C-alpha cells in the first residue's frame, strides 16, 4: 500500500494548489499590501468598516480564479466523457442492462459409411433449478431426498454458475420418469425447480471404435484462454460448453459443434430478468459420415479379441493389447480401425470422475484411451521384408535370380558377428522371392550387408521413407505417431552421450533394419499404407476417415471427402511382380497350416507375417495382408502386443476381418502354433 502515498500527496497538493494560487495572487497583485509592515498589529475594533484593507480585493480575485478553474476542470472532463467518449459509456450501460442466455445446440452425429449411427444424441431428462432455490433449505432437502443426493451436493450444483448466472442450474441429469412425475404432482413444494429435456451423447455400440470416435467433455480453461475471438466465423466457447476432446469428436469439432441459440434478456442490478428481447434458435451441428463400416469394424474388433484370446491360450498370458487397421486400397478409406483394450466413451458424459480418469490413464489398464492403430509404434519385424526386397532390386543389390544359401547361422561380418536365421536348421538354397516367402533372415542379412558396402548405403531407408515410413500419414485423427526410420545421422544424435564408436552406423544396424528389427518403428496404419502401396504397385492413398459432412438442418452432403494420393512409389513393374508373387506365396506356400485358414476364402489373399523381438517381453505378432490378390481392394494390418509369432495370433484377426468382408468365416482348425514363420 506504500504506492498509495505518492498519488495521495499529488491529490492533496492538487486540492490546495489552487488555494495557494489565491494566496500568491494576493501578495502580488495587491501592490499596496505588504507582509513586512513591521510590528504594527492594527486590531480592528469588531470588524468596523472604518479601515478597509485593500489587499482583500486581490485575494478575493484569487478565490474567484480558484472557483473558475474548478468549473473549467469539471467542464473539461464532462466534455470528454459526455461528448467525446459518450458512445463507449453508452455501450457499457447497455452491457449492464442486457445478458445473453444461451441454449445449447445438439452436436452433430457421427455415422458409419452406410449411415448407421455410431454416435448420436439422446434426450435426457434434466432437473434444473433457479439460483434462489439454494437459499431455501427445506426445498433443497426435499429435492435431495427425491433425487437421492446429499443436500449439500444439490446446493452446490445450484450455486454453480458455470452455465451462466441467468440460466437454469443443472441439478441432476438422466432422472427417471417417476421422479419427473413426483416433481409435477408436487410442483407447489418445488418453486423454481423444473424438468428440461436436454441432449446428451449416446453410443449405440458402446465401446466400438471408441478410440476413433473419441469423447466429449467440458471445454478446458486452456482452450478458453487460447481462443481467437477476433475471427468472425470461428466458434467462441464459454465455460461449461461441451467440446470434442479426442478422436473424430476432436478432429471435426468445428463441424460437429452447433451454433448456440441466444436469448437476450434485460436485467436489473441484482440480475433479475426484467424483460425479454430477441431470440435466435439453436442450430444443430452437422453430421460427420465416416468411411468406417460398422460391420467390418465389429469384425476387426472381434478378430482382434480372437487373436488376443488365441495368443493367451498359446501361453502368452500377458497379451491384451493390439490394433487392427482395414483400408480400402482403391481410395485410402479407413474401413475399420480397432485398438485394444477399449473404454466406454459414455464414461465421459457429464464429466468423468477422477477415479475413472486415473484408471483410464494407468499402465495397468493398458492405456485404453490410446489409439494403437495410429499412435502405437512398433518394430515392423518381417513385414518390412517386401519393401527391403524392392529396395534391393532398385538399387541393384539383388536381382530376381540372385541366389543365397541359408545354413541357419550367418557369418557375413565374420565369425565374431554371427547371426541366426529364425530357422536355426537353415533354409538351404534361397532366392529373393523364396526369401520373402519363407521370411529367410539370411537372405536379408546379405542384402543389408550389400547395402552397407554399396554406393547407396542408405538406399534401403530411402525406399522405406518413399513408402511413407518415418512420417505421419496425415490421417484425420489427432495424436498420430510418425514412427522412425533409423540411419547413421539418427543414430549419432540419438546416442549423443555415447562414444563415437558406439554411435557409428554399423553393418549390424543395417542387417537388423533389413529384417525389421532393432530401431525401426512403425505404426499399424503406416504398415497398412505400405501394403496398399505394394498392392497398388506404388499408389498409396492418404488414409482418411471422413466420407462426408451432412448438414442436419438442410439436406444431403455439404462436403464430400476427395481422396488424394499420399505417395507414389515408382518402381519397375517386375519388382512389384516379384514381391506380390512372394507375399501370395507366404499365404499359400510357406506353411500348410497357414494356407488352410485361407483356402476357403472366395478370393486370393497376399500377406506377410512378422515377429517383433523385444527383450524381457513376449514377441510382437504382426500380420499384414491384402485381397483380392488380382484386384486389390482391402488392406488389413494387425499387430498384437506380446502375441507371439505372426502366424500365431495376428493371423486370426486378419482372417476374421476377411471373413466378415467376404462373408466366409474361418472354418479351419489347423493350428498355426508350430508355424513359427517370422
Amino acid at each position, binding site marked *: 500500500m506504500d504506492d498509495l502515498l505518492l498519488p495521495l500527496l499529488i491529490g492533496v497538493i492538487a486540492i490546495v494548489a489552487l*488555494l495557494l494560487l489565491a494566496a500568491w495572487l494576493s501578495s502580488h497583485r495587491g501592490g499596496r499590501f505588504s507582509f513586512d509592515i513591521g510590528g504594527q498589529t492594527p486590531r480592528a475594533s469588531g470588524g468596523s468598516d472604518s479601515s478597509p484593507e485593500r489587499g482583500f480585493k486581490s485575494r478575493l480575485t484569487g*478565490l474567484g480564479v480558484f*472557483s473558475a478553474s474548478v468549473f473549467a476542470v469539471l467542464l473539461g472532463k*464532462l466534455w470528454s*466523457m*459526455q461528448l467525446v467518449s459518450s458512445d463507449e459509456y453508452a455501450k457499457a450501460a447497455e452491457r*449492464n442492462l442486457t445478458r445473453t442466455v444461451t441454449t445449447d445446440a445438439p452436436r452433430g452425429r457421427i455415422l458409419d459409411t452406410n449411415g448407421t449411427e455410431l454416435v448420436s444424441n439422446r434426450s435426457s431428462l434434466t432437473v434444473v433449478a433457479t439460483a434462489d432455490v439454494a437459499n431455501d433449505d427445506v426445498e433443497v432437502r426435499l429435492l435431495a431426498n427425491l433425487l437421492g443426493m446429499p443436500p449439500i451436493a444439490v446446493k452446490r450444483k445450484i450455486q454453480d454458475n458455470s452455465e451462466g448466472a441467468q440460466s437454469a442450474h443443472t441439478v441432476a441429469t438422466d432422472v427417471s420418469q417417476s421422479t419427473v412425475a413426483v416433481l409435477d404432482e408436487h410442483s407447489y413444494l418445488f418453486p423454481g425447480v423444473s424438468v428440461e429435456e436436454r441432449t446428451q451423447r449416446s453410443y449405440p455400440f458402446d465401446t466400438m471404435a471408441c478410440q476413433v470416435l473419441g469423447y466429449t467433455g467440458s471445454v478446458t480453461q486452456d482452450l478458453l484462454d487460447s481462443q481467437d475471438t477476433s475471427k468472425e466465423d470461428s466458434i467462441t466457447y464459454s465455460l461449461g460448453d461441451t467440446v470434442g476432446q479426442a478422436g473424430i469428436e476432436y478432429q471435426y469439432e468445428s463441424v460437429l459443434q452447433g451454433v448456440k441459440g441466444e436469448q437476450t434478456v434485460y436485467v436489473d442490478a441484482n440480475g433479475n430478468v426484467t424483460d425479454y428481447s430477441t431470440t435466435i434458435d439453436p442450430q444443430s451441428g452437422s453430421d460427420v459420415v465416416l468411411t468406417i463400416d460398422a460391420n467390418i469394424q465389429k469384425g476387426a474388433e472381434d478378430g482382434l479379441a480372437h487373436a488376443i484370446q488365441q495368443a493367451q491360450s498359446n501361453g502368452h498370458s500377458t497379451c491384451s493389447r493390439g490394433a487392427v487397421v482395414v483400408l480400402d486400397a482403391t481410395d485410402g478409406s479407413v474401413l475399420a480401425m480397432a485398438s485394444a483394450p477399449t473404454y466406454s466413451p459414455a464414461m465421459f458424459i457429464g464429466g468423468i470422475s477422477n477415479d475413472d480418469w486415473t484408471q483410464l490413464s494407468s499402465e495397468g489398464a493398458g492405456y485404453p484411451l490410446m489409439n494403437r492403430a495410429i499412435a502405437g509404434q512398433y518394430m515392423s519385424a518381417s513385414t518390412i521384408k517386401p519393401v527391403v526386397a524392392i529396395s534391393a532390386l532398385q538399387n541393384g543389390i539383388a536381382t530376381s535370380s540372385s541366389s543365397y544359401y541359408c545354413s541357419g547361422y550367418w557369418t557375413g561380418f565374420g565369425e565374431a558377428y554371427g547371426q541366426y536365421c529364425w530357422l536355426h536348421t537353415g533354409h538351404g538354397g534361397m532366392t529373393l522371392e523364396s526369401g520373402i516367402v519363407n521370411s529367410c533372415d539370411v537372405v536379408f542379412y546379405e542384402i543389408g550387408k550389400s547395402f552397407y558396402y554399396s554406393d547407396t548405403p542408405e538406399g534401403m531407408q530411402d525406399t522405406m521413407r518413399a513408402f511413407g515410413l518415418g512420417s505421419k500419414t496425415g490421417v484425420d485423427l489427432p495424436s498420430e505417431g510418425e514412427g522412425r526410420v533409423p540411419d547413421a545421422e539418427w543414430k549419432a544424435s540419438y546416442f549423443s552421450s555415447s562414444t563415437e564408436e558406439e554411435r557409428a552406423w554399423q553393418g549390424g544396424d543395417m542387417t537388423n533394419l533389413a529384417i525389421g528389427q532393432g530401431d525401426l518403428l512403425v505404426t499399424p496404419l503406416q504398415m497398412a499404407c505400405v501394403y496398399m502401396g505394394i498392392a497398388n504397385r506404388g499408389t498409396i492413398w492418404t488414409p482418411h476417415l471422413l466420407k462426408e459432412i451432412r448438414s442436419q438442418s438442410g439436406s444431403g452432403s455439404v462436403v464430400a471427402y476427395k481422396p488424394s494420393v499420399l505417395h507414389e512409389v515408382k518402381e519397375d513393374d517386375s519388382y512389384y511382380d516379384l514381391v506380390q508373387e512372394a507375399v501370395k506365396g507366404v499365404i499359400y506356400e510357406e506353411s500348410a497350416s497357414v494356407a488352410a485358414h485361407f483356402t476357403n476364402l472366395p478370393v486370393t489373399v497376399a500377406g506377410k507375417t512378422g515377429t517383433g523381438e523385444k527383450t524381457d517381453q513376449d514377441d510382437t505378432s504382426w500380420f499384414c495382408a491384402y485381397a483380392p490378390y488380382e484386384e486389390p481392394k482391402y488392406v488389413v494390418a494387425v499387430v498384437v502386443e506380446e502375441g507371439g509369432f505372426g502366424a500365431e495370433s495376428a493371423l486370426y484377426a486378419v482372417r476374421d476381418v476377411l471373413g466378415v468382408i467376404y462373408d466366409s468365416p474361418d472354418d479351419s482348425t489347423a493350428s498355426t502354433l508350430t508355424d513359427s514363420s517370422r
Partner: protein
Amino acid sequence: MALDTPQDTSPLAQLGNWFQGLGVVGRQGRLGRMLGKGRFTKDLYLPVLIPTILLVAYGLLVVWSASLAIEEASITRQAMGVVLGTLAAALIWRYDVRSLVDMQTALLIIDIVLMVMPRIPGLGVTAKGMTGWVRIPLIGLRFQPSELGKIVTIFLMASSVAQYNGRITRLKDYVKLCATLLVPFMLILVQPDLGTGLVLLVLGAAIIICGGAKRSWVLVTIALLVLGVALIVYTSTVDGLPHILKSYQLKRLAVFIDPSVDPTGDGYNLQQAKIAVGSGGLIGKGIGNATQAGEGFLPEAHTDFVFALLSEEFGFVGAVLLLALFAWLIFATLSFAIRVESPFVKLVLVGMIAMWTFQILENVGMCIGIMPITGIPLPFISYGSSSMVTQLMCVGVIQSLWRHRKKSA
C-alpha cells in the same frame, strides 16, 4: 388586510411582518416594485436569489425523477426541507447577522455543541457507519448537525479573522486561528465524517488566507498538512501502527487511483457513476429513462451520486446548466464580497464561496473520477433536508448581509 398594520404585536402579525419583508404580501409586495428599482431589490440580492431558486427547482425535479425508481427518495420530504430552509432563510434575512461579529466565544461553543450533539445518548443516531445525526424530539425528523456546523464555522472563522482587518502579522495570531479551525475539524473527524471535515478545512483555510495570513506561513502549514496526511496514510497501512484512516477510506483512495482494485465495491460504484455520466451524452436519456439509476446499477443515485443521475437524464446540456447556475451563484456572491466594505462580511462570503466550490468539486468530481469518493452532498440538489436547510440558510445569510450592507453594525 389585517396584516397591513405593522404595529400589531400579536405573533401572527409578526409573522405577517416577515412576509411583508419578503415582499410576498403587503404594501411592498407589488409585482411592479419587485422587478423595478423599488425597495425589494434593495433588500434582496437577486443575483444570488435567482440561481438559488432555479437550483432548488432543478434539484426537486431530479429528486422527483429519482423517487420514481428509488423508494427511499421522497419528494415530499425533500419539499419539506425546502420549506423549512426557506423559513429559516427568511428568519435570518430579517436579522442582522453582522451582530455575530463579536461573538466568537458563543460561536465556538455552539459549534462544539453541534459537533458533539450526535454523541449525546438518546439524541444521536448512527447511520451509514457514522454517528452524524440527531433525532429532533417531537417532530421525529433526523437532522445532521454538522451541516449546520458549516455555517457556524464560517461565522466563527470570519469573526475571528476579521479582527485583524486583513493583516495577520503575528505568528501567534495565525496559530490561534488555525487552532480555532482545528476544533470543529477534529470533532467532525471522530464521527467519523471525513467529507464534511474536508469542507470545514477548505472553507476555514480560505477565510484565513483571504483574511491576510502571511504567505510563508500558509505554505509551511500546507507542507505540514501534506506531511501529516502522508504520515496518517502510512501508519494506517502498516500493521502495528495506529490506523487513523478507516480501511474503507484507504480503499476509496486506492480505488480513486485504480478503480479495478475493488470492482465490486467502491470501484464498482465509481465505474457505474462514470457510465451513468458518460452514457448521458449530449442531451441525456430523459426523465425517468436513466437505466443506471433506474435499474439499481448506480448506488446512492439520489444522494451522493445525484450528479451522475442528473447527467444521465439530462446529459451534457443538463450538467452544463447545473454548473452554470452554480457559477452564477458563486460569482454573484464573490462580486458582493468584493464590493462590500466590512472585512467580516467579506470573509463570511469567502467561506460560503469556498464551501460551495469545494462541495461542487468533490461531489461532481467523484462522479467523473477526478476526486476520490467521499459522502459530500451536492448543494441544493442532493436528497436530504439537513443539507437543503443549511444551504438555504446560507443564502438567507447572504440576503441578510445584503439587506444590512449599508448600516453600521
